[in-house]
């Protein structure tokens, strides 16, 4: 089962390495990991999506907690969480199907951020399912390159 962990860490050298090493050593699989600054310059937030059973999740959390630079770990339940991911994709287009692709992009409230003679780059933001759906629709036209940021998330309210 997939779980989203939101981890506040001290912004110190090597923190990412420590987290990555821990996951590798204990045999936990990371689906995605996004790390960035918070409102406090000395604290960063990691949003880690792991695919583990309940028992292993407990171990992941406890082992993460043992890392000295980790301040707080939250297990974000989907129903009380706002989560977003961004996707950039370079889609093959020609003069015939360009407008068709643009229509799909509009439906997904995506942006076209680059246009060239035979391709466009599209930016789509949303939850994991939405991005997956867009990717499926884009596939038939030919995907040249694709990148996803990994999920970022915050708990609602409070």
């Amino acid at each position, binding site marked *: 089962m997939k779980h989203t962990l939101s981890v506040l860490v001290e912004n110190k050298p090597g923190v990412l390495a420590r987290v990555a090493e821990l996951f590798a050593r204990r045999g936990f699989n990371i689906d995605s990991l996004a790390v960035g600054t918070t409102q406090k310059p000395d604290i960063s937030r990691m949003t880690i999506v792991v695919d583990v059973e309940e028992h292993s999740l*407990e171990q992941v959390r406890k082992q993460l907690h043992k890392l000295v630079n980790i301040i707080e770990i939250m297990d974000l339940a989907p129903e009380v969480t706002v989560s977003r991911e961004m996707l950039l994709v370079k889609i093959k287009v020609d003069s015939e199907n360009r407008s068709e692709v643009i229509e799909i992009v509009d439906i997904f409230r995506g942006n076209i951020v680059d246009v060239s003679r035979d391709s466009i780059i599209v930016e789509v933001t949303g939850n994991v399912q939405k991005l997956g759906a867009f990717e499926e629709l884009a596939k038939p036209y030919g995907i040249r390159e694709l990148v996803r940021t990994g999920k970022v998330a915050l708990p609602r309210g409070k």
Partner: protein
Amino acid sequence: MILDTTGAQALVRSLEEEGVEIIFGIPGGVLLPVFDVLYNSKIRKVLTRHEQGAAHAADGYARVTGRVGVCIATSGPGATNLVTGIANAYMDSVPMVAITGQVATNLIGTDAFQEADTTGITMPIVKHNYLVKDVAELPDVVQEAFYLARTGRPGPVLVDVPVDVSRGELKYHRRDEPVLRGYKPTFKGHKKQIRIAAEAIMEASSPIIYVGGGAITSHAAPEVKKLAQENDIYVTHTLMGKGIFPETHPLSVGMLGMHGTRCANYAMCETDLIIAVGARFDDRITGKLSEFAPKAKVIHIDIDPAEISKNVKAQIPIVGDAGQVLKELNAVLKEAREEAKERDHGDWNTLIEEWKEKYPLTYERGPGLKPQYVVEKIYEITGGEAIVCTEVGQNQMWAAQFYKMDRPRRFVTSGGLGTMGFGFPASIGAQLGCPEDLVFDIAGDGSFLMTMQELSTAVLENAQVKVAVLNNGYLGMVRQWQQLFYNKTYSCTCLDREKESPDLVALAEAFGAKGMRITDPDLVEPAIVEAIESECPVVMDFRVDQEENVYPMVAPGAPLYDMIGDMLYPVDKIHPEKAEEPFL
């Protein structure tokens, strides 16, 4: 701001302020500024002959004194040579600070001479580590390192200091307390959980206390004793927990696990309540996990939440310092006993006593020299009062089985990592930490040769360690497994003691220590006495029976009731409804 101190001075001053009295290590290029300052420091410098020896000596020192052991090594190979010792301390939760030199900050990442990514290499085997890039941070880092090493679940902390940081200047300032936002160990146990645990103990009909090294760390010996005696509960200990509860006490059933007593292992199979204190249900303890303690509810007391329910599910987890939790638990139990109706472990106690009597640890006394006999004699002659270090393998298990410990911090062994070559340098550290005590290293011929160059250190520092080599001319434990599980194919385990192996007596004497060879059982006793009376390090080469095995034994992956040896698990006496089944 006036810069009044060099990095090297700040480092040494910080060590002094932490109360460091001894440091084990070897200098090197990037450590020159540090050793230059250390030269005039009151801290005792012990120059080992290999960095691994330095780490193990610091480890041995820490285990017997309860203080933080400190070792120091230069960049690159110096640091990588520490790695085994650091991993060893990590697995056994030993408080240690390792200081390593590093190439200058502007050379880091350029594959400079003697450069290694020390913090990267050690990351999985330390509690925490630091690469100090700003000299101003050095005092805080050292303070944090010691605090982390000794508090909570102790462990090794490494501080990597580039040479330009040692040469740099700062205004020395030390905080009153370290600032560690992400580190807050839980010491006090949850009150409600303690009450639930007390209820479970009151209700249990066949309880057992299973105690490990964590209880030693938290100075819990008096509370363990109280828990056992006041509630009439038998105690089994792990290898790491040896000495936390007196092994000569009537309520002790000895060590459990792969080479534990039959009584302890059978008791784990039958108990209805395990009270685990500072132990981590290691695979050498549980045997086949799915068949471990099938009838038991588990109370698990540990300061490290990650240990709870890691291997064995705990119904009653209590996170906290073992000593503090047990103190509260004992108080709650005292009240509960006053209110409770009569409790009786009578049947259970009878069964345990039967097992104890029927299956003592024993061996066949042969015409030859038996390794167990040597350990027994050392025990007798020292009256159980020596500090005993061990290597790893058969020697370690015989030491654990036949040298009974009645006090904690007297049995020094590599439990988790199983590091051959640990015992001898550790015994030097232990001897320097406890100069008044008699220190033995019970060794094997294989293990001893891995770190025997530290004889030089022992002689130089006048650490009068007595090394008893149980020389069977084999890597004995591996040979035993080959005999039992690999059809006696003794692949690469024979250390031909008659022809190819070095003469240990001559070797000891070459280093300026005393060497003795003993082949006759009748001469064991006088030899040990002579060794004890000699005012120098001694190596006793006991030529023991070559193919003696450690028994009883639970084969790897087998359940605890299935012990190799003569007898099988007896038909269940407590639960007659199961008597039809051959095993459980």
